[in-house]
């Protein structure tokens, strides 16, 4: 599993960890039932605090992506992939709606928006 953390990003580190594990679960790179690294070993390997990895796992558990089996470990939970994807689409629609509203207010054309998306798509990691 690969996780890339940026210390200069404005996104909190626990959120970066959470989102990356989540996307690996949605893409099925991490299949259901797969054991995940413990809170402490993940903290050590990512050189971050224990509370950070603990928060990431707690949120993943709250959202139903992982489950903790006491004294055994943390595992990828059974998730409804279709539902998870639908949620991701829904989130994206919300963000784009805001962007399009902003564009319309400033008289930016549809073509320009698509051009910007094309450029940014290549730039974003």
């Amino acid at each position, binding site marked *: 599993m690969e996780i890339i953390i940026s210390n200069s990003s404005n996104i909190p580190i626990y959120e970066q960890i959470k989102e990356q594990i989540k996307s690996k679960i949605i893409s099925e790179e991490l299949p259901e039932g797969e054991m995940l690294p413990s809170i402490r070993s993940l*903290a050590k390997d990512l050189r971050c605090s224990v*509370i950070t990895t603990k928060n990431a796992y707690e949120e993943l558990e709250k959202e139903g992506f992982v489950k903790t089996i006491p004294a055994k470990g943390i595992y990828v939970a059974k998730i409804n992939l279709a539902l998870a994807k639908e949620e991701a689409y829904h989130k994206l629609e919300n963000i784009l709606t805001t962007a399009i509203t902003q564009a319309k207010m400033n008289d930016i054309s549809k073509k320009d928006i698509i051009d910007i998306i094309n450029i940014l798509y290549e730039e974003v990691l």
Partner: protein
Amino acid sequence: MENILEIKNLTKKYPNFTLQNISFTLPKGMIMGFIGENGAGKTTTIKAILNIINSYSGEIKIFNLSHREHAKLLQEDIGVVLDDAFFPEILTPNDINNSMKGIFKNWDTKMFYNYLQEFSLLPNKQIKTFSKGMRKKLEIATALSHHPKLLILDEPTSGLDPVARAEVIEIFQSFIENVDCSILLSSHITADLEHVADYITFINEGKIILSKTTNELLNEYGIVKCTEKEFQNIAPEDYIKYKKNKYEYEILVSDKKAFKAKYNIKVIDKITLDDLMVLMIKGEE
């Protein structure tokens, strides 16, 4: 969560300095960074925890035991690196191993020699031939080799180069892979703490001014930079401290999201522990 260290109302008076009502707790399995200016009271607090100074008031509990009544017992379970205490220069690491065997019941000769090797310290060389960084590493190796549950480290990374610091920090993180172990670590190298410390406790002029999770500090606190005109529109309850610079105002806020929602000010930066210290100490209320 169980606490490994609990300090309540610790007060110690010196002619020119008072440690006032120090209270904080360190849960099991966590690293706490202890920060503050030189002379703020970090070392005095650490010495009180270690029973090196006496005639103070307040309560210190380690593993839920009063540390005054169980001093002998606790000595086994606490690993210590102090900033100003060094081993005698004519000793070699071999000598240290021999004397520690007599002091600590749980002394682990194998572990000690493993650390010596990891840190590239020759067992038969006298300490006087060691650099400052090598001496620090020797102290850290010694502190870890009697299987303590609590590590108390006063400036353990000072004098170490960046590569050695990374090595040492990794060893600290391995140490707390055991859930029953914790570390209290004072440091001026705040970047080390930002990464690995779970909690930050900040002492200034003998008082604790904050003790919080590092995530809360780094993710929620922020520095607003604005003009004088903008500053005058900000309600005093919405910031902690401010500092007027030549070209701008810097304002420390405890909840940058809420601040952003309320005021239309463009620059709200993430904070570093260094920024936090400077604004807390030099800023005005």
